[in-house]
């Protein structure tokens, strides 16, 4: 029981980080970006390549820090992945989405669907289809709660790290959107782009910031997924449905909604693994999606359209 919750929260933190970016794109750039999942995949693989580059200078992931399986080198690789993924998101916007913005949201959705396939297959082309890992070391999980209490709870230090860093990132983003000028401009543009423009907010600057934030969070989510699960070229498309389910569950444009939605979808996934088996895990997100469309299509924190 406890284990299901813990596993769900760890899957959920990956979904939450990805869902925030997707939700921001949906509310500020105003289209469903089907290539957002690929940003997670590319982020994960960028870190792998950075690790390989740094690894030439040091040993693997570097000397592990404390109980973790990775060292400072891994954090450096994470940073590189964040920068490169943000650049990739900006480049995609520059080459494709910006040119199509006038043709309406649906054209953008089609284009993003095409971009997703191209991006995913480029990963497949370069890295091959075999799952990869940042480290070959297996980490021993520490028992936190003994087996007598609700089935017990075991967790690896890496998983705790992922969960903690997820909460830090979300809080930082929350403070940014609440208190910084740029963050406020982003929220204003999400609510009413025309009014925001009249008030002197540069829409291009807001869009750039949205892509950068989305890209950085996607990279973090991708690397987390790589640390806690594995890296596959299809990880982006596999995560896409959970991401969308989380965004709609939370309500489009709401950061905390996306986070809560991410954790709920994560919990649903880990519960479904123990109830119907791992092979139907991906359907859990679909069930959540259908339920929310039936009951409350605006999401938990969404505004009426």
């Amino acid at each position, binding site marked *: 029981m406890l284990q299901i919750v813990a596993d769900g929260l760890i899957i959920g933190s990956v979904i939450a980080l990805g869902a925030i970016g997707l939700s921001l794109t*949906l509310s500020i750039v105003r*289209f*469903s970006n*089907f290539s957002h999942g690929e940003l997670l995949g590319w982020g994960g693989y960028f870190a792998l390549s950075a690790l390989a580059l740094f690894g030439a200078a040091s040993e693997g992931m570097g000397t592990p820090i404390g109980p973790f399986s990775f060292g400072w080198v891994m954090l450096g690789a994470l940073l590189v992945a964040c920068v490169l993924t943000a650049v990739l998101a900006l480049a995609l916007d520059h080459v*494709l989405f910006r*040119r*199509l913005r006038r*043709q309406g*949201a*649906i*054209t953008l*959705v*089609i*284009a993003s*669907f*095409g*971009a997703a*396939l*191209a991006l995913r*297959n*480029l990963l*497949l*082309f370069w890295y*091959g*289809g075999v799952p990869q890992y940042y480290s070959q070391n297996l980490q021993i999980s520490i028992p936190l709660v003994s087996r007598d209490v609700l089935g017990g709870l075991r967790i690896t230090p890496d998983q705790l790290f992922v969960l903690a860093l997820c909460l830090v990132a979300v809080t930082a983003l929350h403070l940014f959107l609440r208190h910084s000028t740029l963050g406020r401009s982003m929220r204003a543009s999400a609510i009413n782009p025309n009014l925001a423009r009249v008030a002197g907010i540069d829409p291009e600057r807001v869009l750039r910031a949205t892509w950068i934030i989305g890209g950085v969070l996607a990279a973090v989510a991708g690397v987390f997924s790589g640390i806690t699960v594995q890296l596959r070229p299809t990880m982006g*498309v596999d995560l*896409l*449905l959970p991401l*969308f*389910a989380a965004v*709609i569950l939370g309500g489009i444009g709401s950061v905390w909604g996306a986070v809560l939605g991410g954790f709920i979808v994560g919990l649903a996934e880990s519960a479904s693994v123990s109830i119907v088996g791992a*092979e*139907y895990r*991906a*359907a859990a*997100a*679909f069930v959540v*999606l*259908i339920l929310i*469309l*039936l009951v409350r*299509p605006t999401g938990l924190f969404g505004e009426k*359209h």
Partner: protein
Amino acid sequence: MPDLLGWLSYGSFFLVFASSFAIIALGLNLQWGFTGLFNVGVAGFVALGAYTSALLTTPETADHIGGFGWPVALGWLAAMGVSGLAGLLVGALALRLRHDYLAITTFGIAVTIQLVANNATRLTGGPFGVQFIPKPMQAWLGTGLAWNLAYLTLSLLLLGLAYLALEKLVRSPWGRVLRAIREDEDAAASLGKRAFLFRLQSFVIGSMLMGLGGAVYAHFVGYIAPEDFLPILTFQLWAMLIVGGSGNNRGAILGAFVVWIFWAGAGALLRGWIPAAEQARAAALQVVLIGVLIALMLVLRPRGLLGEEIAVSRHVGDKAPPV
């Protein structure tokens, strides 16, 4: 003249594939081209049709449920029925909401259908799929070229039938309401047209055509597996519609043939160019190429090769009745 026979055989193979794609593209064109409904789960609806017909018409087997030995024609009708039903369910859920929700829901159902096809081994045969799908008319024509050509004729006939029916539909008052809703829902609503119902009808008919296309494909190949219905199939169909010109039935058919030629040609070229050990990578590059094609088309020629025709009532030219 073995060469000629080989070409004829390959050609008929190629054309049957293209015409089953064209049937699906017509369905997608009704949904997107005429009604503006964005379906990202085309592969799911196609798979439903293919599996339905396959499971109903195959001879009894111990491997999985199904195998009812129905006549093929009934299987095809059932394929249309089941895909249409799936369209009804998805449409009823998502068509009242803003357009993104339809895209996301259709994406979700395609993922789920793929999952069931892969894992519900008792029903679908799992990753090994369904085999021995009966090939209609084979009792008379054997397995050779004659059968290929006969099946080609049959699928072209179905394609023609679907085309004529759709042309009739989109030029009818019903078709004009669809386009009115697509262009300006409020204006259409103010004339008393219930947008949701029209959208739902269009979505269901489109889904039925997708199911039919899947069934035509399944009975030609005689074998289906989950990997035949990956998201790449959805994408190929979108490429066909966009390249051919959405909102134009002839465009959808033209696009199906052109993109299929491009796809097969690019695949053959890449296979020749990339060493045999790297074939998986060649396939990946093939997808990237078609992704670039669709992006270029969207940026450079958004209306497609043919573009939308302006269809007006056939009574427009008539003399106005005396007032």
